[in-house]
C-alpha cells in the first residue's frame, strides 16, 4: 500500500491485496514466529458500534504480534456520551496509541479520522460505507478455497446498506472475477457503488433470486437482510425467506461451491449447511487473526 492507513478497498491495488494475503499466509504457516515483532506497540481500539469478531480479532492480532491494545470501551461510558466530537476523541487517543482501529456508525468516519491524526488509521466499518479488513479476510478465504481469478462470485442479501458487500465488490474488481449481485429490488447496490464498479471496468449483473444463478457460482457470499430495513414485519419475513440458504437450495449448486458469510448470521444460512463441504464461514472468521496481523505488520511496521 502507498499509504499508512486503510480506509477503503478502493485504495487497494491487486498487488497491495496479494502482498497482505501472502504475508497472512506466512503468518498462518508460522504463527509463533512473530511474537516479538511489536513489543511495546499499542493499538487503540475505538468501537462506536457493537462488535465481537472484528474487535476481538484485532485484539488477538496485536497481542500475537507482541503488542498491546487499549480499548475505549462502550460509547455509553466514554466522553462521546457527553457530546465530544469524533475528531476530538481520536486526536486524544492518537496520543496514547501507535495506530487506531475505528468502527463508527457514520459513513466516512475513518476518512475524517485520517485527517486529524498522524498515526495509521484502520477502518473497521463505517456506517453503510466500507469494511476493508473484513474484505481482506474474505479474499484470503476465497483464495484458499477457489482462487481469485477466473471465478464466479454471487453476493446476496442487503447490497444497499451492507458495508462488507461494498468493500468486497470493489476489491474483487481487481481480479478476473464475474460478480453477480442477488437481492430484493429495494436493497440493490447504491448508486455510488455502481459508479465505482463501472469506473473500474466491472460489469454489474443483478438478480432477484438465488436459484437462477446458483449453478454458475464458485462462491456464494451471503449477507444478513436486516429487519429494520423493512417497514412491515410480514414483508421482511417474506423477503428474508427467499434468500435463506439451506441444503435444498444447495442441491442445485456445484459440488465445489464455497458458501461464505461475514457473520453474525441470523437465519440466512440454515444450521444444517454448517456440516457440509460448502460451509466456509467459520474458517473465514478464523482467518481474521492472521490477516489482521499481516495488515498491522504492513501499516505499523511502515510507520515505525
Amino acid at each position: 500500500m502507498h499509504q499508512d492507513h486503510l480506509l477503503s478497498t478502493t485504495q487497494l491495488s491487486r498487488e497491495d491485496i496479494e502482498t497482505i494475503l501472502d504475508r497472512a499466509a506466512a503468518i498462518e504457516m508460522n504463527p509463533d514466529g512473530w511474537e516479538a515483532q511489536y513489543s511495546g506497540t499499542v493499538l487503540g481500539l475505538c468501537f462506536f458500534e457493537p462488535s465481537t469478531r472484528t474487535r476481538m480479532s484485532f485484539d488477538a492480532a496485536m497481542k500475537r504480534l507482541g503488542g498491546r491494545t487499549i480499548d475505549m470501551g462502550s460509547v455509553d461510558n466514554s466522553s462521546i456520551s457527553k457530546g465530544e466530537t469524533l475528531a476530538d476523541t481520536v486526536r486524544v487517543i492518537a496520543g496514547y496509541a501507535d495506530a487506531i482501529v475505528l468502527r463508527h456508525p457514520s459513513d466516512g468516519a475513518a476518512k475524517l479520522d485520517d485527517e486529524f491524526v498522524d498515526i495509521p488509521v484502520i477502518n473497521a466499518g463505517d456506517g453503510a460505507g466500507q469494511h476493508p479488513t473484513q474484505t481482506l479476510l474474505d479474499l484470503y478465504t476465497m483464495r484458499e478455497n477457489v482462487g481469485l481469478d477466473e471465478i464466479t462470485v454471487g453476493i446476496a442479501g442487503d447490497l444497499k446498506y451492507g458495508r462488507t458487500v461494498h468493500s468486497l465488490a470493489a476489491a474483487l474488481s481487481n481480479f478476473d472475477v464475474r460478480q453477480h449481485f442477488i437481492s430484493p429490488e429495494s436493497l440493490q447496490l447504491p448508486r455510488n457503488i455502481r459508479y465505482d464498479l463501472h469506473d473500474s471496468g466491472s460489469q454489474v449483473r443483478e438478480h432477484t433470486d438465488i436459484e437462477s444463478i446458483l449453478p454458475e457460482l464458485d462462491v456464494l457470499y451471503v449477507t444478513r437482510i436486516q429487519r429494520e430495513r423493512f417497514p412491515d414485519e410480514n414483508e421482511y419475513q417474506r423477503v428474508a425467506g427467499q434468500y435463506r440458504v439451506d441444503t435444498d437450495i444447495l442441491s442445485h449448486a456445484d459440488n465445489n461451491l464455497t458458501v461464505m458469510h461475514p457473520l453474525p448470521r441470523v437465519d440466512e444460512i440454515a444450521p444444517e449447511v454448517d456440516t457440509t463441504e460448502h460451509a466456509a464461514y467459520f474458517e473465514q472468521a478464523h482467518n481474521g487473526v492472521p490477516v489482521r496481523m499481516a495488515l498491522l505488520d504492513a501499516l505499523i511496521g511502515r510507520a515505525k
Partner: protein
Amino acid sequence: MNDREPNQKESKESVNDAVPRARKVDDQQLRVSKIRDGTVIDHLTAGEALNVLAILGIDGSSGEGVSVGMNVISDRLGRKDIVKVEDRELSQSEVDVLAVIAPEATINIIRDYAVVDKKRIERPTAVTGLLFCPNRNCITNANEPINTRFIVLDEGLQCDYCGSIVRESEVPTYLDVA
C-alpha cells in the same frame, strides 16, 4: 463543459459595453447599469444568479455594489442571468467553483469601464464547502469540525467522505449556501 473562447458577438453582448448598440442592449442597460471597476459574470443559466452570489459569498455586507439581472434576453442562451460585482475582482479559483452550476458562464474583469481580462471557468478537480452531502448518515452531516469535499466527476460530484454521488442536475438542491 464549455472550452471554447467567447466569440465576438457574444462578447459584445456583455452589458458592460460603454456604448449602447441596439434596443435590446439598451433595455438591458436600463435594468443593469455599467460598472466602473469589478467583475461581470455573464451567460449564467437563467435562474442561477442568486445561487452564484451565494456560492461566491457575495451578499453586499462588505459594502460592494451588486447588480443582478435575471431572465435577460440572450442570443446564445435565450434567457440568461447576469451578475455584476463592483470593486471586486474575482480570482481564477473563485470562478472555477462556478463550474458545477454554471459551466457556460463568462467572467469579465472591468477596470475603468473597460474589460481588461476575460476568465474562462476551468472545471476544478474538487470543491470544498460548496454542497452538503445528500447522505444523511455521512460524517460531514454530523457535528464535526470539517467541510464537505466533493470530487468533480464528468457528470456530477462524489463525496470524498462517503462516496455518495450528486448528479449535476441535482447540484442546486444540495448547495450549502444558506
